[in-house]
């Protein structure tokens, strides 16, 4: 057993992937000498050299566009986008090029590219540093989208994403980077494309991913004191969604609350609510409820705690669900 922060678990996962496959290269702004602004790539350039841990010019479209070319040459680039709000200059390369290359070439070209994006708020940052853009990518055919919530998953999911032959958008919960866990890195990992019931319960299913998983768990602990049993599911994979796990849970509890930081409209919660309604309609005792960020731009950090879903808002939704 060893103790890892989520950031350190990512570093070690990246290191494993680079040791295993010489075609894995890391590229991004400040990822080399500095080790990344969150130190996720700390020490990797020293160990693997400048050809494999590439400090790039400051242009996100360039990072993803050249990663596509490297992938065409047989490499497995892992791109770091420094902050969620900086991914948009690369949006065209991701959505129009990266996501479609395999399809357009009738399968002859593969794009094993991972794009790591620190996401979410709660760290008192200036604007463009606290966003949750996952829905844009989950909406895009050809991409796979995952979100890790804890050190163990961070360690394995980054390796599994790098091993994946499809492009993966990899969301990292930046306010959880420093949370610690003990685990044995040699233990077998869960498959990447599965959600996980991380706290069994009987009354309401709470679906969460990334930074909101801890919030959901905290809510479940508080609810227990009131005699309510919440089942918390960490979605882990956002595209494709693991609906088998989700539906099995909702069929057991009959109620569902989805929690995410991203704005509500046309978010992951909307998709989950629609699919649950289509496939588990007769099991539902209440409509699927959403606890999310608001349909506003991300607010100034001094009021972000009001914007972000927290324990009380999750419990409020649980109350409303149970009142049906």
């Amino acid at each position, binding site marked *: 057993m060893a103790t890892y922060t989520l950031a350190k678990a990512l570093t070690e996962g990246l290191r494993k992937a680079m040791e295993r496959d010489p075609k894995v290269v890391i590229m991004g702004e400040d990822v080399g000498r500095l080790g990344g602004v969150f130190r996720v790539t700390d020490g990797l350039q020293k160990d693997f050299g400048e*050809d494999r841990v590439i400090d790039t*010019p400051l242009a996100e479209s360039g990072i993803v566009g050249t990663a596509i070319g490297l992938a065409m040459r047989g490499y497995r680039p892992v791109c770091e986008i420094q902050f969620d709000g900086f991914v948009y200059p690369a949006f065209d390369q991701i959505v129009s090029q990266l996501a479609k290359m395999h399809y357009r070439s009738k*399968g002859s070209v593969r794009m094993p590219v991972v794009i790591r994006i620190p996401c979410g708020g709660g760290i008192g940052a200036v604007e463009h540093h606290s966003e949750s853009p996952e829905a844009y990518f989950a909406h895009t055919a050809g991409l796979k989208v995952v979100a890790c919530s804890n050190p163990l998953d961070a360690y394995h999911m980054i390796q599994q994403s790098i091993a994946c032959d499809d492009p993966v958008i990899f969301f990292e919960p930046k306010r959880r980077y420093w949370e610690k866990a003990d685990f044995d890195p040699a233990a077998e990992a869960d498959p990447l494309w599965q959600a996980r019931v991380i706290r069994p319960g009987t009354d309401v299913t709470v679906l969460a991913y990334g930074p909101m998983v801890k919030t959901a768990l905290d809510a479940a602990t508080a609810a227990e004191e009131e005699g309510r049993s919440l089942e918390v599911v960490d979605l882990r994979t956002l595209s494709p969604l693991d609906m088998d796990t989700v539906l099995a849970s909702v069929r057991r509890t009959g109620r569902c609350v989805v929690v995410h930081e991203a704005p509500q409209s046309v978010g992951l919660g909307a998709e989950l609510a629609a699919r649950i309604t289509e496939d588990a309609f007769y099991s539902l005792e209440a409509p699927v409820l959403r606890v999310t960020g608001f349909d506003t731009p991300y607010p100034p950090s001094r009021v972000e705690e009001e914007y972000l879903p927290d324990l009380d808002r999750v419990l409020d939704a649980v109350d409303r669900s149970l009142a049906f």
Partner: protein
Amino acid sequence: MAEGDLTADAAGDVTGHRPELVQLLTPEGERVEHPDYHLDLTPEELRGLYRDLVLVRRIDTEATALQRQGELGIWASLLGQEAAQVGSGRAMRPDDFAFPTYREHGVAWCRGVDPLWLLGLFRGVNLGGWDPTAHNFNLYTIVIGSQTLHATGYAMGIQRDGGGPNGEYPGAAIAYFGDGASSQGDVNEAFVWASVYNAPVVFFCQNNQWAISEPIEKQTRIPLYQRARGFGFPGVRVDGNDVLACLAVTRAALARAREGSGPTLIEAYTYRMGAHTTSDDPTRYRLADELESWKLKDPIERLKAYLVRTGLAESAFFTDLDDEAEKLAQHVREGCRSLPDPEAASIFENVYVEQTVPVARQQEQFAGYLASFVGGEH
């Protein structure tokens, strides 16, 4: 000339200097020498280039006709740009890798891509679909300028794969783009990347003077090739209607890239003789006089004049070539008409290397929906 009183434009630089085109064959078909670019071709090689030009133009003519007959949804003609494409295309070695726009039919020809693949895209039966690695010719890229970054990344891969015994890379990348694309952020980012990493990539810009309706003056206040200097690598303007000059200049740039000396920007100065695509009407925005003046610089006529006058090709060569062009035209026409429409199920294929459950389920549901019709016919 005082600073701030600059009258630069796309044709001349801020000093008012009109840059000389690298030219080895004049519009009249006179072979001329250039101090920096030498080319020594056998008669057979010269005839080969002429053959390429003629056949590529024929493919283009047939495709335009097929669009008019309703067989293609749209076609982007290369008329007038044959020399730029054949010259640069024939400069490539097998290990070089080209990243085209959607108009590089002549380069595709040089890379051995069957023209029917190109027609498939414009007919709507595929999205390109050829195997880029089989020809070292990437799929057409329609979003303007995106492919310049792919070429640069590919070149970074070449660097990481390492060179041969003498340190030379086995190949280089070449990115095609147009004058309009030169304004795109991606193209400028590709220049930065290629420069700082000294990547083995050649940027081949066909300045055909028009980005749909916008003249070159809407894209630049200096000749495009001069932009390279600001990024830290050489730029050169070549007569894009001179296949010999395009061949020589691109060969030199690719050799420079392969030997590890970094990128080059080539501005092939040419003219889009036709519409932007078959959906476009250039009479709305440009004058017939301009077109007439460029007709005198035709890339095929000048090489023909040279071959005939020097006796490097006899009349039998031209007759045989006419026959070959006719056969190719027939292949294009008949092949195009018999390209099968894709099956509905193919919509769901190759979205992912590893198919996802939601896509598989949608495919299954859609198949069930189709089968629900009486007799199974939709």
